[in-house]
């Protein structure tokens, strides 16, 4: 789900070789060049920012805690990294990555042009985040009048979808943190505290468990769609719908759940719908088949607007980009997905449930579920 973006990332993002070894990143850089080998690119520009940094994290572990960052990747695998901040701020920026000598961004067009001087002939590939501002590429291109820049995001985004053994391990660690966070959330709800207090309790539990980032949305009315917590005052809502996402080692785990002291048909039918999706899910199953399985258990209830996208790929971003613009069409083995079911009957009567799964040939491993 879309979440509010904090002004600055505060949590632990330093690169830890014990979590993701350098060899993993070096292998990914080779994969990226292999994916582009038909087109004779001279280098790859990788863009990320504090909101969206999947590609940067995939190759370098670097997550910009403020503003933006760029990795400039040469065909021999050498990487230059530029980060927002003054030269004196590079001390902590350096800790975020295995790449040596992180440099500050002064004029990114000029930095890229200087780097391009060291490269051979050919265009530069641009691996951009979807949130890259519209006015940025023209500025970069203006600094490189004789060097074409081609968007290679669609080709390279595909590398992030199937998860390596290392990525799966880290994603499971993230899911374990999510479990602790949502357990605290449930406990707080049972203690009859406000929605805001429940959310903060969940955040504290996830932070204590090692989350580098936590994003939460919650109802602002009884049964309301989870949304940004932009209010300081407390309100108690039953049912309370909550979305929680945690990040660890760059990988996200997310889920949505409905807390209700007296579960009605909407809650029960939605739980059954998610259960049906989980029973149907396996490699090769289409999303339309999953939706059909869910729909049969909703008992005629309307699908919740936040569950219209029933399946999203989860990894270094909360919503992985897909080969097709409409999103995930078919479950693929080795990927991690969030499966979501939701229904609403009327004002205040709504439910959302989800599960985070790793897809295998004959079914799924459930990494986290709001049914348990």
């Amino acid at each position, binding site marked *: 789900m*879309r979440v509010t973006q904090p002004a600055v990332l505060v949590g632990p993002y*330093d690169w830890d070789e014990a979590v993701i070894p350098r060899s993993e990143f070096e292998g990914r850089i080779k994969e990226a060049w292999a994916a582009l080998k038909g087109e004779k690119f001279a280098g790859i520009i990788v863009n990320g920012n*504090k909101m969206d940094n999947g590609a940067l994290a995939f190759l370098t572990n670097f997550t910009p*805690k403020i503003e933006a960052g760029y990795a400039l990747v040469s065909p021999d695998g050498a990487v230059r990294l530029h980060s927002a*901040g*003054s030269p004196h701020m590079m001390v902590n920026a350096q800790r*975020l990555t295995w790449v040596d000598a992180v440099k500050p961004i002064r004029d990114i067009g000029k930095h890229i042009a200087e780097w391009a001087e060291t490269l051979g002939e050919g265009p530069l590939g641009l691996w951009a985040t979807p949130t890259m501002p519209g006015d940025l590429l023209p500025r970069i291109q203006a600094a490189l009048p004789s060097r074409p820049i081609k968007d290679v995001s669609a080709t390279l985004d595909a590398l992030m979808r199937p998860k390596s053994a290392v990525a799966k391990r880290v994603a499971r660690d993230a899911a374990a943190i999510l479990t602790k966070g949502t357990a605290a959330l449930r406990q707080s709800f049972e203690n009859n505290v406000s929605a805001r207090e429940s959310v903060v309790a969940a955040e504290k539990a996830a932070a204590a468990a090692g989350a580098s980032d936590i994003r939460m949305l919650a109802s602002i009315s009884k049964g309301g769609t989870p949304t*940004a917590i*932009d209010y300081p005052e407390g309100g108690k809502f039953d049912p309370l719908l909550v979305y929680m996402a945690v990040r660890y080692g760059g990988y996200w785990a997310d889920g949505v759940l409905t807390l209700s002291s007296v579960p009605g048909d909407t809650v029960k039918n939605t739980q059954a719908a998610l259960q049906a999706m989980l029973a149907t899910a396996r490699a090769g199953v289409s999303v339309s088949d999953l939706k059909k399985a869910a729909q049969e258990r909703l008992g005629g209830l309307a699908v*919740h607007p936040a569950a219209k996208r029933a399946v999203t790929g989860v990894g270094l971003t909360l919503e992985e980009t897909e080969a097709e613009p409409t999103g995930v069409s078919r479950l693929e083995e080795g990927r991690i997905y969030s499966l979501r079911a939701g229904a609403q009957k009327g004002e205040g009567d709504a439910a959302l449930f989800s599960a985070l799964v790793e897809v295998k040939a004959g079914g799924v491993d459930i990494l986290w579920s709001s049914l348990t």
Partner: protein
Amino acid sequence: MDINGRQQAALQLMEREGVDVLLVAPNELSRVDTIFHLTGYRPVGESLCVLSRTGAPTLVVTPEWEAERAKARAKGWTVQTAADLPDAISALFPKGLPSGKTGTVNLGKLPMAISKRLTEFAGGDVKKLDQKLEAALMPKTSIEIEHARRATAIGEKAFEQLLKIAHEGMAECDLAVQLKLYMEDLGADDNFFLLTASEHNRAVQPSSGRKLKKGDIILAEMTPTYHGQLSQICRTAVMGPIDPKLEEKYNLVVRAMMAGINTIRPGQRMGDVAKAIDDVLTAEGYGEYCHPPHIRRRGHGLGHGSNAPGDVAPSNDIILQEDMVFVVHPNQYLPETGYLLCGEPVRVTATGFEKLSKRTAWLASVPL
């Protein structure tokens, strides 16, 4: 000024510029001054305000499920949810936007694909009013000023908490996360929070996994938001006993800060606030440290982001007006001590200034 007055200010700008329709995008998704300041709503996804000199103001938000909060926050606005922002804007203007009479704000800050489609739809003869709208929306509303006071109080309590919980061996970012959550408990909804420590700091930075040690100087730039309004205090604490020479230098930086603050009044040039700070430090022999790379600015505006009235910097010619809110922070590097942080948020009053913090920065000690 209240939020309706702010909308009126935007309409007056449109009239001055000969613009019938104004499309206003956020500065970026994490610094949404324009939309938040116009409507009171902080977007989750790409959103756009549509102001018309003849019709009702419309707020178009994505994703579709954001309707409830958008309607609750953006009072007086027609709220429309959309799956696709450019499609929704096109649908609002089936005959296209008025040629030569359309203004835009921050369309280039939207994500590339959306920005391209909206820019094409707006056409080539639009007036870009990014800077002019920001200037028109500069003064804070009375509610925002009260929120800035509340945010300041949260920051001050958080620094007291820092002095209680910081300990040797604790990672900077663990301290920062605990304090951020503490501020959330107190009502903060976001935080531009930088916290770093070293025996000799060169800058304040986003926190890392570095472990705190005895003798470290902790720099904390605490910037909680309360109902979306930022405030900021800048503080310094020593892990353990304070060296008297360090305290002497810290007091000099506080004196320089107060010299700047004491010049604040309506009609004053912002650049002269920075000059008053530099004058004190220069007189003590630190003139060469009053320029880049050691220091770029002595503070900045406090909105939902660091914007109007801009930087407290010698080059800023903005004339201060009543109800502008900004932070004055010398944040000075001195060769003997390293970088030291002190900063107070202020409001320009009719006759001078109101310091929003209760206690002025002091060199604090974390008991070990």
